[in-house]
């Protein structure tokens, strides 16, 4: 994070009229394309959180699970006052792990039936393919996906913005070491 702050000292100075433009600019400024492995994933998540901050969307939890759905944690978890969860996985690439996301989403909806699950991706081809899987019913438990630099991402943030969100610590599992963060609010 401190490295990110060095590279991008003032997010508000970035000219971007849409969230997807902001994420693209941040990804570029922070050298996301040249990084490898986990670092790329962290940068992607920071880009997304920055867009949430700019849009004043929150509160949300970071790297948390949902109580009753063991084993899986999501990058971002939004909760509503009524006890709904919107779970988001942000990945540079998913490969076969879309199956895990689909199963986790299915389990989430078994525990909290009004909940939803989304995937945000950097990889355009994968975003397209997962979109097709959702339509074909192969990833039927995933409610939507967005490529982080595309208009889909702007629409996704519009959905989030339209939701009534509230911190619900009772729904969130921060993991054994309490490593999950939040609620984060702006």
């Amino acid at each position: 994070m401190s490295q990110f702050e060095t590279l991008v000292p003032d997010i508000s100075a970035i000219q971007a009229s849409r969230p997807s433009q902001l994420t693209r600019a941040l990804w570029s400024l922070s050298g996301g394309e040249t990084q490898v492995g986990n670092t790329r994933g962290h940068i992607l998540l920071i880009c997304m959180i920055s867009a949430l901050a700019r849009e004043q969307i929150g509160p949300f939890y970071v790297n948390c699970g949902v109580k009753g759905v063991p084993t899986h944690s999501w990058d971002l978890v939004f909760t509503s006052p009524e006890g709904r969860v919107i779970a988001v996985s942000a990945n540079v690439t998913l490969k076969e792990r879309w199956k895990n996301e689909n199963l986790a989403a299915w389990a989430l909806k078994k525990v909290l039936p009004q909940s939803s699950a989304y995937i945000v991706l950097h990889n355009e081809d994968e975003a397209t393919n997962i979109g097709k899987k959702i339509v074909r019913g192969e990833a039927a438990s995933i409610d939507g996906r967005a490529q982080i630099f595309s208009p889909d991402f702007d629409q996704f943030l519009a959905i989030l913005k339209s939701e009534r969100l509230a911190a619900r610590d009772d729904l969130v599992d921060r993991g054994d070491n309490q490593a999950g963060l939040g609620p984060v609010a702006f």
Partner: protein
Amino acid sequence: MAAEVLYQIHPDFEEVFASPSILIDALWRRGELLLGSNNNLRGEFFELLVALALYKWDVRPFYYQAKLALIPETDYDFALWTQHGPVVLSVKTSLRERVKQAALEAVALRMVHRRAECYVLTLNHDEATNAQRKVERGDLPALSAVITASTADFDVLIQRLASSNPTAAPTVPLIAHSRSVVT
């Protein structure tokens, strides 16, 4: 292809092995040179060895690459039906991050069948030991155990499964009961 390798190294189906784990260990060693580094082939071959062990030690009937009703988009490597419900075996030559997939599949199964048992079988003993510690700590709560197939733990599992008298899975009507049907 994996079946061809198995036939090459194990042409005599009647060959006797002292235990399931010895069968796995012996045939894996024989097959390893022929398998090379093709991970898909290695995985498929390991599955065949597990199938062979189940068959030879009378853990039957078993279902191979089974999709269970009410559980979305999941193929369990092996499934058995016992009086307590389903038992599934997830077979992976090495685990790495894939233990999470098996754990999620187990979560899904247990949400539908509360008393289901879910085992992960692998050949990498160190990974199995680490994952089993997580099971014991409660970090992978839906998994029953992670077992190295070339060790005595596998023999214990096979013995237990054989004694659970697996049967063909029942066919269940989707509407169990209703007072009347209005059409």
